């Protein structure tokens, strides 16, 4: 009931959970050995930015359009091609539908006969 087995694959979530709990306990052990004597709500607990004023939360937060910037820049060529059919115009969607009917028909009638 707990175990899922197929071929050489074996998956038991309970073993995974036990391992997870052990790792969390070790992590907690390390954390508990950290410095506890700092003073809350003083400069000790605030962000230090080389003496500069720390910007507001709005300015600190990395926005969604900046996340994975390098990934999109590297794959610019791919994204230019993939974005092109996403016009938002329903007429274009129907053209794609007709094209897909034609492609499936070609596959079934020509390749399927082989």
């Amino acid at each position, binding site marked *: 009931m707990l175990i899922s087995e197929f071929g050489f694959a074996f998956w038991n*979530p309970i073993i995974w*959970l036990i391992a997870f709990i052990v790792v969390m306990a070790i992590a907690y052990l390390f954390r508990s050995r950290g410095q506890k004597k700092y003073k809350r709500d003083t400069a000790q607990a605030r962000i230090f930015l080389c003496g500069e004023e720390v910007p507001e939360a*709005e300015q600190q937060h*990395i926005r*969604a359009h900046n*996340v994975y910037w390098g990934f999109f820049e590297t794959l610019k060529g791919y994204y230019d091609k993939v974005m092109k059919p996403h*016009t*938002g115009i329903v007429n274009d*969607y129907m053209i794609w539908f007709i094209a897909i009917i034609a492609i*499936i028909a070609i596959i079934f009638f020509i390749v399927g006969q082989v």
Partner: protein
Amino acid sequence: MLIASLVFVEFLVLLLARDIYLNGLHVYTLGASSPDLTIPQQYMVPVRVILEVDAMSIIMGIITATVSLAAAIYSLSFMKEETGQNRFYTLLLLLVAGTLGIVFTGDLFNLFVFLEIASIAGAALIAFRIRFADTAEGGFKYIVVSAIAGLMVLFAVGLFYAQYNLLNIGALAHVMQYTILDEIALVILIAAFVMKLGAVPIHMWLPDSYTVAPASITAMLLASSLACMYALFRVCFTLYGVTLNMAAVGWTVIIFGVLSMFIGVTMAVLQTDIKRLIAYNCVCEGGYMLLGVGVGLAVLGNPEVLSSYGIAAMSGGIFHIINHVLYEGLLFLAAGALFYRIGTRDLNKMGGLAHNMKFTAILFIIGALASAGIPPLNGFASKILIYESVYQFNPILAIIGILVSIITLAVFAKAFFTAFTGQVLSKYKDVKEAPKSMMTGMIILAVIIVFFGLFPGLIVNWLAQPAAEALINQTAYIGGIM
């Protein structure tokens, strides 16, 4: 009253499921003196409207009933400020009826009728909050795509009726000759259902419509789209079955699956609208199901290979259908909770929301990790079954699946990081947690996700594998009618 009726539907569906697993396939003939009188006296073929429910249909029924119940509970708070609530809940029930009809009917013409019912109700519900500028556009796109797909299905039904004088799926499968007209009908049916389920490259309508619909309705539209995936499988396996050229049809379904996975996830990672991001992820996850069941279809003619890994691939695909609707439903509901509280779907405008919406953040992360296939959640259990079985069919397909899963994790890392982490933005300092009924709807789905993740063997053995075997067993489906 609404919730009570949906709880009753859930109860009836579970009761029917129990009966099907104990006694096998169920048939109900509407208007007959006895429900199992499929062929009236003095007739040679079935002429009445017949519901035929096997292990595959009932899985879809359970999914639809569960998601509808969670969505309806969620709607109580989410739609509280909207006018015309009577009409909203009437349409919601109509969508449930249409979706259940698609998965329970044993008749091709009624499949078209229920498809239309679900489509009209779905379009009206997408455009329901007409005060938002983009809802009408989303509803319009949905109805255009659905109407075209529906008409194509009707055209294919006409081709069958012209040749065989039959509309019943089992009866048609019994006499199927696979003529040139049958082949044309198959092409049209595959294209229509592929468009309705939102597979690449005819998926573009899906993010446009899902994004603007009320969150609870998006979760139900997901169940409705998966009903179209069920219809695709029913047509391929039951209506045509062994008469098909397995390799050509199987590989066609696999190619749709792989394209959906890769293009879906790479488009999702680009999005900055949280619901649009999840919608593209839905396109991607649909690809896994098409891949798993497509492999089963490709090896259907080879019993040895089918039993070696074909059934496992199909079971993985079907298990993923169940999981997908649960975690994507949860993600849409969590995104809806954010919209309800802060009035935007734009991730660029969000930040630090986990400070004030702790439970929504936890529920979102459960859905996100399940979608990315992180253990011990349900998405991992179905994905590993797909990887393992598909690897034996073609290793490259399994590698693509794993790569896509890694990018899915990146998609939700982006969404979670930008919406929930960091310092709380000053404009969201007073934001409150989502209302209780919305939390209840989300918790129902989250609990099932965790349960299915912890007991994958139970779900595979009792739900997914019998469903895969029911799909393969064309003779049993025909025997239920003839």
